[in-house]
Structures are given as C-alpha cells and as structure tokens.
C-alpha cells in the first residue's frame, strides 16, 4: 500500500488492515496526530477522545487477531455532531446541548459499529445544521482546507473539511437541503444524500424531519458506497424508512465501467443566471465527460426549481420550530438560572440558541400560526408537490439528472454572515432533491480559475441510489478530479 495511512480511503484502509500492513491502532494514531497538527487551522472537529479511540482500535485489532474479517473492521469514521454515539457528547453545534452526552447509538452508528468502524471524532456543523458555511456553530467556524480564508460549506462543513484534509477516510453527515452535497463540492470530496427513507434518522438530531437524511462523505464514490451499504435499510425505529431491499450496491458500484445506455438529463433551470461562470463551465465540461463515457445527454425541464429555496425554508423552519421545542432546559443540556418556569424557558432558549436558529424558529412558528399557516405552510406543501411532479416528468424522459451542486465555489469566511438570504440562496440547486425525496450525489469535477473545487451533482429517482452511485463511480473511473488533494499539512 502506497503513501501514508492518512491518505488512504475507506477501501485502501480496509485492505491494508485486512492484510495487517497496518494495525487499527497505528491508523488511528496517524489520523489523530494529523488532527492535532491541522486542527488549529481547520477547526473541523468538535470533540475527540484519543484514549477512547485507541481503546476501540485495540479491540478491533484483537478481534482481527481472533479471526474477525468484517470488511470495515478498524476503519475510522468521523461523525457530524448531530448523530448520537453512545457515550459521546452530541451538541449539534449548539450551546443549548452543552453537557449532553448521548445515552444511545443512532441506527446509522449502530450499524457501522456492528460493521467494525471506529468513531474517531465529531465534526463541526452549523448550529442544528442550519446554515451553509459552518459559521454558526458554537465551536466557531470551520475553514476550507483548499483555502483557510474560505468556508468549507455547510452545514456538514466539519465532515467535508475532515475528509478533504485527511483527518478521516470518511465521515457521516446529514443533508436537509444540500448540507452534504454543498460542502462536498466546496471541499472537493464525494458526498451522497441517499433517498429519503433509505438510511434511518433514528438518533439524528432532527432539523426538518421530512427532509433530513443521513449520508456518507468520502474521497471516492466507491468509499461512500461502502459506508452507505453498511448503514442503509429499513429500521423499525424510524417509521419513515423503506422496507425495499437495498441490494448489493457496493458490487454494482465496483462493476461500473461506463455510462453506455444511460439517458442523462440536464435541466436548463439549473443553469440559472446566478450560477457562477467558472462553475458552469466546469459542470458543462463534466457533462461532456459523461457523454464521452457513453451517456446520451437530453435536455429536461424542472420549472419549479426557482421556488425550491423558499419552499425549503418555509417547510424546514416550520418543522424545526417543533423539533427544537424539546430544548428547554428541563431534562438535559444547558439551563439558565431563573426563578420561574416561563423565565427559565426564555432565558435558556434565549441564551442557548444562536441568531440563525432563533431566526428560523421565529419564522417556523409564524408560518404555522393560525392565520398564517394557509398562506405559508400549506402553500409550501403545495409547491413541494409541484417540485415532486417536476422530477416525475423529467424522469420520464431520462434515467438520471446532472447539473451543478452550487451556484459558486467556496466563498470567503464572513462574506454572507450578515446576509442570510444570500446564504439561503446557496441551497437553490440542492433543496429540490430533499423536497422530492430523491437521492443525490456530489462528485468533484474540477476547479475554478482560483483553484477552488467544483462539484457535479447527479440526481436519481427515489430508491435508485445504486444508479446515482454507479454513475458517479463510472465518472470517477474516467476522471481524476477526486484524487486532487488540498495543499495542507504536507511537510
């Protein structure tokens, strides 16, 4: 196995561990050392416990010595600070969950634990995953490994930066309107948002229950697929998961060679006026690369794309206003001192939540109020149906859809901090996949003139996760964009 262990992806690390070229302890130590070195610049991680990680790694090594040959045994995975890992803090980047330690594993975590993974660190996130830059976290902003003056995207910026900077071969993240795909694009890594209902949300701090989905971030589609395969499938503890069989996605992804026979739709609406020219150019070039791989490119239309961002905002704020009601200081987490119950609620939530969260809770509460609900919440549901229909019609004419992930490449830290609408607009190309429940993949497809990564988005119909991953895998076999490394931490 070539290079330093920190450079290995999931499959390389798994192979090296299987061949006992490296022990799980050595691999974990290398990654922890790199984190110690880079974290002062990056701030991608919110928590790590070297002792606990090394104990888990030792256990994995002992298991292997005892004949255990689970494919992911000893493979380290970083976890976004919204997923519960038993015994680890789970704070969603918020002061209000200060001191809360999860007493149970999320289902995604439990399945990866059963597969042998080690949870090496927790990654930074916008507070309650509300944001597109990882700047609203109580732990401070995470920086983009390609340019530390820029944001890594968000809300899963910590996971994206950790994978890009080689602090972990893969990370778990969540995506409610692009929170996996956009940071993946900004940081030049692969990010996959599975179809709604494919990965259990049990144990995942809820932002917007009808939109949230847990997914992997990694340095290749094959690696993302390996993590996805280990955690996907029906879960009795999440009633919104599907009972459809997942299938052997990993084998299908490994077998992907070209795109012959594939009808790839390109929606004109994705190339909106706000789309940065450099990003547009790279994505069009990527579509050409797909054509060269045998795909038939067809033009499709998604007329309601422009409403996606606003629609997401109303619906997610409404659900969030209800989901976040439980953070009240009564049972766990931060509690402000007050003499009276109403005061305690006000002070706890007033001090515990940051400005962006409060903004959304106010909006969400308002859009559900008697009088306003018709105009906002119900209308937003109707728009959601229109967006879903757009995709149904488009998928009648093509197998999958390709387009840009983001309107721009990574922007400078602080650039949008005081302009929330421009921040929300960053979800314009990704939110519709969540609203329609589709699966969507972001793969690196080149760089802007400034040397910043650009992502190609591949969308497939709900429960055609294997198709989206196969397309991405074929693309990565023909291109090397995903192999580029940020200039960081090389001595």
């Amino acid at each position, binding site marked *: 196995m070539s290079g330093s262990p920190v450079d290995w992806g999931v499959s390389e690390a798994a192979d090296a561990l299987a061949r006992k070229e490296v022990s799980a302890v050595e691999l974990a130590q290398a990654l922890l050392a790199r984190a110690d070195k880079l974290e002062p610049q990056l701030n991608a991680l919110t928590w790590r416990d070297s002792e606990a990680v090394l104990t888990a790694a030792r256990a994995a090594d002992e298991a292997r010595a005892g004949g255990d040959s689970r494919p992911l045994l000893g493979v380290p995975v970083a976890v976004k600070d*919204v997923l*519960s890992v038993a015994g680890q803090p789970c704070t969603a980047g918020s002061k209000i969950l200060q001191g809360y330690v999860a007493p149970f594993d999320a289902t995604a975590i439990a399945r990866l634990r059963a597969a042998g993974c080690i949870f090496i660190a927790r990654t930074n996130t916008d507070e309650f995953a509300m944001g597109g830059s990882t700047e609203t976290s109580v732990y401070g902003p995470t920086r983009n490994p390609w340019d530390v003056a820029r944001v890594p995207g968000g809300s899963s910026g910590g996971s994206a930066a950790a994978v890009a900077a080689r602090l972990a071969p893969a990370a778990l993240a969540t995506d409610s309107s692009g929170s996996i795909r956009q940071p993946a694009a900004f940081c030049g890594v692969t990010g996959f948002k599975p179809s709604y209902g494919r990965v259990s949300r049990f*144990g995942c701090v809820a932002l917007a229950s009808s939109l949230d989905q847990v997914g992997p971030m990694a340095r290749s589609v094959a690696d993302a697929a390996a993590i996805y395969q280990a955690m996907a499938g029906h879960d009795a503890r*999440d009633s919104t998961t599907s009972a459809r069989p997942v299938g052997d996605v990993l084998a299908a992804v490994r077998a992907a060679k070209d795109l012959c026979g594939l009808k790839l739709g390109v929606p004109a609406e994705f190339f909106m006026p706000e789309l940065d020219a450099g990003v547009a150019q790279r994505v069009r070039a990527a579509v050409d690369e797909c054509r060269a791989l045998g795909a038939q490119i067809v033009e499709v239309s998604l007329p309601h794309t422009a409403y996606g961002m606003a629609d997401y905002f109303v619906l997610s704020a409404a659900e969030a206003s*209800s989901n976040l009601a439980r953070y009240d200081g*009564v*049972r766990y987490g931060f509690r402000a001192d007050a003499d009276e119950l109403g005061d305690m*609620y006000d002070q706890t939530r007033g001090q515990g939540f940051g400005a962006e969260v409060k903004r959304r809770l106010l909006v969400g509460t308002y859009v559900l109020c*008697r009088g306003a609900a018709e105009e906002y919440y119900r209308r937003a549901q109707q728009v959601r149906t229109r967006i879903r229909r757009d995709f149904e019609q488009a998928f009648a004419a093509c197998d999958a859809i390709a387009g840009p992930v983001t309107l721009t490449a990574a922007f400078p830290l602080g650039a949008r901090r005081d302009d929330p609408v421009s921040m929300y607009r960053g979800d314009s190309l990704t939110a519709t996949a969540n609203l329609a429940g589709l699966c969507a993949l972001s793969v690196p497809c080149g760089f802007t003139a400034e040397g910043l990564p650009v992502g190609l988005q591949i969308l497939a119909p709900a429960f055609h996760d294997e198709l989206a991953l196969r397309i991405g895998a074929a693309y990565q076999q023909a291109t090397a964009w995903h192999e580029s490394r940020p200039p960081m931490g090389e001595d």
Partner: protein
Amino acid sequence: MSRARRWEKIERPFVAKELMMSDYIASIGLEVHVQLKTRSKMFCACPAHDESEPNTAVCPGCLGMPGTLPVINREAIRKTVKVGLMIGSKINRRSTFDRKNYFYPDVSKNVQITQAAAPLCVGGGIEIDVGGQKKFIRVNHIHQEEDVAKSLHMEHSTWIDFNRAGMALMELVTEPDMASPDEAVAFLVALKEMLVYAGISDCNLELGHVRCDVNSSVRPVGSEQLGVKTELKNMNTFKGIHRALEYEIERQMETLRAGGTVVQETRRWDDPTGQTLPMRTKESAHDYRYFHEPDLPPIVLDDATIEGWRAELPELPAAKRARFMADYGLPEYDAGVLTADRAIADYFEAVAKKSGQFKASSNWVMGELLRALGEQGETIAAAKITPDALAALIALVEAQTISHSAAKEVFQELFENGGDPEALVKEKGLAQVSDTGMIDQLAEQAIAANPKVAEDYRAGKEAALKFLMGQVMKLSRGAANPQLATEALRRKLQ
C-alpha cells in the same frame, strides 16, 4: 333499573336538581381521555401502567432526547378502532398523526403527538337511559394520542414523573347533546361499561385512567343557537363532574338571568369549595400550531383488518341485556344487574345453561353471589364456587333434596372453600327427608303432643298449622321436606 339509576344507587349520595325545569336549557359536551390497556407506551417500548418508582419506566424516546423518533403502537390503534366499531363510528381507512405544539414541562418534547386532521374514528354515538328516558348521544370523533407526564406541585418546585408520559390515550369527543349532569354521567357510565367489557381500558378512575374535559353552555328555552361555553379541565371523578356541572350550569344561568354574559373560558373545579373558578380566557388561549407529524406515516387500515377486529368485539351490555331477557325470560331488572359486569354475566350464563333453571340461576347470582362478593369487596374471580357447583346446588334445591335455608349454608361453604355440593350436603346431613312414611309418623307425633293446637286448626285457625310444622321440623332436626310435612299434617288433621 337503568344503568344511570344503578350508578346513582351505588355511587351518588346527592339529589339532582331539576335543571331542566328552568327557563334555560343546558348543553353539555365531553372530551373523554381514556388510558388504553396496552403493555407498552404509545410511541416507545417502555412499559405502560407502571406504578413503580417515579421516572423508572422511561427511555430516551419518552424523555424527548435528541434524535429519538416515535413508533406507533399497533395494539393501541386496534383498541381505539374497536371502540369506534362498538359505537358505530366510521373508521378512517387512512388516518394521520399531527403535532400539537405547546410548552409545558409535562410534555417531554413540548410537542404532543395527536390526531387532528384525520382521526381514527368519526361519528357514532351511545344511547343512554336516564330514569327510563332513552337518548342518543352523538360522538364527533375518537382520536389517538399520547399521555403527558404526571406533575407533582410542591411548595417551591414541581416534580415530574415521566412514567406516565407517552402512555396510549384515546380521546373521545361528543357533540353537545347532553342536557343535564345526570345525562353526562349516564354517558360516562355507559362508555366506561363498554370499555371495560371489551378490555379496552380498566377505566380505574382512582388511577386516572379516565379524565374528562367538560364543556357546557346554557341558552334560553326556545333558542336554537348554543350559548357561550366554558370548559372544565381535567375532571377525573364522575361525582366531581356531576357536582361541577350542577354548579357551572347554575352559575351560567344566574349570570344570564342577572343580565350578564358568559365569558368563553377555561375553568377549573375546586372541590373543597364546590365552585368552578376561571383559569384562562379564550383571548389567552393557545395556538397549538397543529401540523402533520412528519415522523409517522399514515395508518392505513384495510377492510380485512377492520373486520377482523370487529369479530373480536364482545357482545355489548345493551345487546346482552336484551338477549338475557329474550333467551332466559329474565325481567329487565335481572338482566340489567347481571350484565353490568361482563364476568358476572358470563358466570350467570354458565350457571343457567348447566342448571336449566334460568330464574333460579339469576336469583342465586344476584342474591347470594353478589351479596357474598359485596361483603368481601371482591370480584367474581375470588369466588371459589364454580358455575357448575352452583348449578348442582340449584338442582338439589329444585329436587327438594335440601331446603332453601340449607342451600344457603351450603352456598356459603362453597363460596369460601369450593367443593362439591352433593358431597357437602351428605357430609353435613342436610339432605331433606322426603320419606312420606317417616314424615307421616313425625306428623302424628306432633299432633299427638299438641292436641289443643290440633283442635285450634280444626276450628279454622290456619296459623296453628305453622306451629305444628315447626314441631315436625324440630323432630326431624330441620331435615323434613316442608311441603311434604305440610301435606302430611293437613291429611292427618282432617
């Protein structure tokens, strides 16, 4: 006797005021919350009805910890739908859950999962009987929801026990069809009887299994439009509901008579002072911001499922009463008493079928059995006498093998210790003497020993025969068949 009257006799120590006789008419609507008899809670696997240490029957789910999700308890759905089937509701084939948003420490998520847009059961109703007057009370709907935690208010703090949080509740909402406290209580009694019958809930009021929000309004006689209503929250005894309604309706009427207006508000019943007191007005009422619960898919019920559940329904009290009257020729009173408790009704039927003596079976169950149970404060499960044994005892009486008073003695023995009545009769020497030769002999002895009394009888003093009967019984040590003894005496005295 009607159901309501029976309740009155058992539980009600007061006299209803003649509210209907005034210039105003009252309209009462009930929202009845019933804890279902399920093993686990509504949306998590925690044990329900756990009376152990506070905050021990809890999990991350019912404590509202981050990332937890609700999972529907199918048994609760089955039970609620069965209630709908019993009262003739339309069962929604597709039913959904909604979130009710409000902040209070007893709601762990500050969100209660309930049903607003598409409840499980819509419509239906229950017939009540108050003083022989039958009336149909319409039900608006029945929905499924989760219970909240129990709050214990101390002087400077409030303690919360989450053992109750998340227990399966059904909420039945009536139309404002009841016109008096008697009718409201009759409805609750009839509902409770039905729920206990079908095993839906134990309806133990002391344990808070049934809690009621009581809406009432009054309007002048002749007016079609309902008056402004007030709501009494969280009432948990039928007696309290009756008293509170009497007070509240009278208060509303007095307000209107004095030229005032009733304010739409929530009030609470203050039992010690016997008053209702204002809690909050409509202006400060919550906007619960109901919206579809995104964590739960709709409940879809097909015909086969619903019909399967319908087939599990027991015969309901009203139907059983009618059948007992038709099949066993019982008077309405007997049928009412016997069917008030499903276990008693089953016991009676077993005795009646075995013995073939329907009225005698009814008399024994209503008389001796209920008396003995009442004395010990026990349910039928505590009785050691089996239906077969009681049937055998009845047969012994009918065959005049033992006297009625001897049978009562045998019953008591069997009730306490069980056993075979025939063996017991033999063991105790209680069998009646029906040997006419022996009885003739005893009759002659009695007459010979009391010539004066015999003379009185012959002179037309019928009472003299009773004295001689007593002598025969004494001579036989109580074993003589009284009928044969009477016949023998009359014959000998002619």
